[in-house]
């Protein structure tokens, strides 16, 4: 993992440095004509842009190790502050969507497997396959135009109402702005878990102990509760944690659609406007995020699965 992180730092640094987008021009923007070459050099010196690439990398790397990720050019704030601030917004969104899609997806998978080959199963399967081909941002646009524009139930975008002071924003307002993006993410997110759970449960239902349980007269919900659930919960949980990478991708798109001020929007802004420190910081942060997801998935497996526990103690 350590080598991976270092490599990611290095590669992304090189990639960004080779970009044709000039950070100085991106920084100054439309006033470029008013800036002489001398001023330009001064700015370059101020940001440390006139040194060789390797030196720049080591400068950045060493400050990074000291916990300083640099200063964002577009927000004029330390990168860690920008990320922290945005993360609070994003984490609420991601957590809601993550839990919702997990619970709904799991339930759908269970229902589909228990009612195998009926119309319920077929429509759930069809829905999941369709979802796999649905662009997240398009789903966002649809949700937006139905619930915000057509029905007018929810605000169209942003994390808080426009034109209201920060201290006047209530929890209700924030919640209202959260619902649509979270809904979009959950709608798109259920497919994977549902299909996976369905397959697992079908495997379990075909097993001999299930046949025996049926022979004893257990049916329906009791059957599932006693023998099915334990077997399929762990894979589903693992899958959900391992899906952090896709979740992050989904958040980037959804936040863009709903102009929700989270990490995803910051990533896009940083990419579009050439904010090098922020983009680097976000790449690292998202990597850590995915890594934590995988780690938790691994740990949960060890913690919850009795077979794994016994295997370790032996």
């Amino acid at each position, binding site marked *: 993992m350590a080598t991976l992180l270092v490599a990611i730092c290095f590669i992304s640094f090189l990639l960004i440095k080779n970009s044709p987008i000039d950070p100085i021009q991106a920084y100054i923007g439309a006033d470029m004509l008013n800036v002489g070459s001398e001023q330009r050099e001064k700015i370059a010196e101020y940001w440390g842009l006139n040194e060789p690439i390797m030196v720049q990398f080591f400068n950045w790397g060493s400050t990074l190790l000291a916990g300083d990720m640099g200063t964002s050019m577009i927000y004029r704030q330390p990168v860690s502050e920008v990320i922290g601030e945005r993360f609070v917004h994003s984490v609420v969104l991601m957590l809601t969507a993550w839990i919702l899609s997990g619970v709904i997806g799991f339930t759908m998978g269970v229902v589909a497997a228990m009612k195998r080959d009926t119309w319920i199963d077929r429509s759930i399967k069809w829905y999941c396959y369709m979802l796999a081909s649905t662009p997240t941002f398009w789903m966002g646009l649809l949700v937006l*135009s139905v619930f915000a524009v057509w029905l007018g139930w929810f605000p169209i975008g942003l994390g808080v109402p426009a034109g209201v002071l920060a201290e006047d924003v209530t929890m209700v307002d924030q919640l209202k702005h959260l619902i649509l993006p979270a809904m979009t993410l959950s709608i798109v997110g259920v497919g994977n878990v549902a299909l996976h759970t369905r397959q697992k449960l079908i495997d379990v239902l075909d097993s001999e102990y299930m046949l025996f349980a049926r022979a004893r007269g257990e049916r329906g919900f009791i059957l599932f509760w006693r023998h099915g659930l334990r077997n399929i919960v762990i894979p589903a949980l693992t899958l959900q944690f391992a899906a952090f990478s896709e979740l992050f991708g989904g958040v980037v798109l959804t936040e863009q659609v709903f102009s929700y001020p989270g990490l995803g929007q910051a990533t896009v802004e940083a990419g579009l406007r050439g904010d090098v420190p922020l*983009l680097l910081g976000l790449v690292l942060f998202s990597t850590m995020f995915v890594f934590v997801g995988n780690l938790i998935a691994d740990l949960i497996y060890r913690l919850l699965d009795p077979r794994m526990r016994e295997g370790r103690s032996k």
Partner: protein
Amino acid sequence: MMPTLTLLNKKQRALIVTILAIVFLMIVIVIGVVLDKESVSTNLEHRNASPTFEHPFGTDWLGRDMFSRTFIGLSLSIGVGLIGALGSTLIATILGVISATMGKTADRIVSWLIDLFLSVPHLVTLILIAFTFGGGFKGIVIGIALTHWPSLARIIRAEVMQIRSAEFVQVSKKMGKSSWWIATKHIFPHILPQILVGFMLLFPHAILHEAAVTFLGLGLSPHEPAIGIILSESMKYLSAGMWWLAFFPGLCLLFIVRTFDMLGENIRILMDANIDYK
């Protein structure tokens, strides 16, 4: 089961679906190429029209026919997806074969590379690469090619490993055939179906990611009528109730992606010798 379905066995059904899917895709591409560029020119008399017979998908704020724009955008997307998926498949094949045949060190390096690419979210990598190349066609194709190979490389690696230890390959080796002969005559024919199916299944992802990055504004330039561009433009007009700007192009994209997905699945069924003619 419906009676019509039982008349045909699984492979015949797969064949029919495959042919239908290919015909459908050909039609879309042909429409996209043949459509005269006249209809996407600005026509200020028919601005913001909701869908009618003349303009099935409506028109946008410059009076451009959305139907034409959508289909031109779709063929563009298919093109980008094709090149991206091809590149990705090539990388996956080369790395997969290398890691399976060239010993432990090569294997370790390739798995390290796979881990590297899987540990950053795809979309973030794509943004990063698109940023490096300053957006545009090149950036997006390279980005897609570089991000989609890991899973296929793993499959190919496992496949090659399995065939290498198969008895007929061992016998062939004992009989003094060169490793080139074994690679081309024994291993390659075996992994070809895997590569083909892998390629087909990469396609939908490639198209979706292309549309996503373009949507975010880091992909193709705004002058090209890509689906992502159409959708991101439509965002400004959604609040004015012009839902058709977003609805139809997205739906078409969904159909195209789903068709490719089905195509991949069915080609897999056709090529899989283990599925018998039930």
